[in-house]
């Protein structure tokens, strides 16, 4: 089966996010009542797997091995089966 896996990597809470802070500052200067901006990355992965469970296991493995650094990053995984 083909699965569309959306992996969102973001900074752990409490870590400085200079890019987010700079973006928030500019959005405020543009007139928006922004309280905070957190910057992350989204990876849309198309994956072959025998089941949804296997797709999730593989995606978690990808995060641990490459996409996220456990020192500073959190990740969230959303999986959709291709129709």
């Amino acid at each position, binding site marked *: 089966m083909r699965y569309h896996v959306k992996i969102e990597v973001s900074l752990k809470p409490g870590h400085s996010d200079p890019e987010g802070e700079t973006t928030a500052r500019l959005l405020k200067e543009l007139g928006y009542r922004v309280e905070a901006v957190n910057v992350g990355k989204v990876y849309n992965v198309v994956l072959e797997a025998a089941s949804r469970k296997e797709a999730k296991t593989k995606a978690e493995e990808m995060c*641990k*091995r490459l996409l996220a650094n*456990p*020192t500073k990053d959190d990740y969230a995984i959303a999986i959709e089966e291709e129709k």
Partner: protein
Amino acid sequence: MKREEVKVCVLRVGGTNCDAETKRAFEELKVQADIVHANDVVRRRNLLEYHVLIFPGGFAHGDYVRAGAIWAKWILAKLGTELKAFVDENRPILGICNGFQVLVEAGLLPGFDGMSLYPEAALATNLPPGYNCRWINLKQENRGKCVFTRHIPKGKTLYIPVAHSEGRFMFVKQKEKQLLERLYETDQLVFRYCSKNGEYAQGSFPANPNGSFHDIAGICNSEGTIFGLMPHPERAFYWWQQPDWTKQMQMPQYGDGKLVLEGVIEYLTKKF
């Protein structure tokens, strides 16, 4: 081993820089140095022909995903066995700037208990944000474990440039105090950012150019053979690379970068 038998491998891939400066600096130290594309080492399986391995600076693989991450995982996948043998034989590895990021992402640094499966630290986006290219002062903190710096007196201040956007050294927030204590206990702390007078930067910009935790600029592994630092010693090797050379009437022949690169030669000629 005689000095002229020492072979240094300066690895390169798309996006590395200062490989030529690094090779020239080592040749000035009367050792052999080759710039080798990582694909060639994989094809020839000849990593163990070399005694020192250098991951130079730059933006390897475009710094995609995270600075150093792609090259780190690539090298583990393609050269993992040879790299492990290289490490196990206590052959020295140096990571400069992007090379430091590679070593951290590969789990080779800090390497508290040997090579780790996942990174135990990170080099995050600079604080204040942005690319920072400037000459900074470093204080030598190591008590003798690091094979690159053991000849530099503890407390000596070195003047070497940095040039990076992601150099903020950090540990997991909840464990940073505990892991810092461990760095001290096992003598893995090598360089800290400081002022011209040798006072620790205490996080203040520009003495600490990236907001690094505890002003950390360079660390080594628990064996002292793997060393990574954000500053570029190869850019501070000769007198004519110093920023103020036109103002000086007389200058020493070499800059402080030479101190960082020459120590490893001494180690190799004695050990092997």
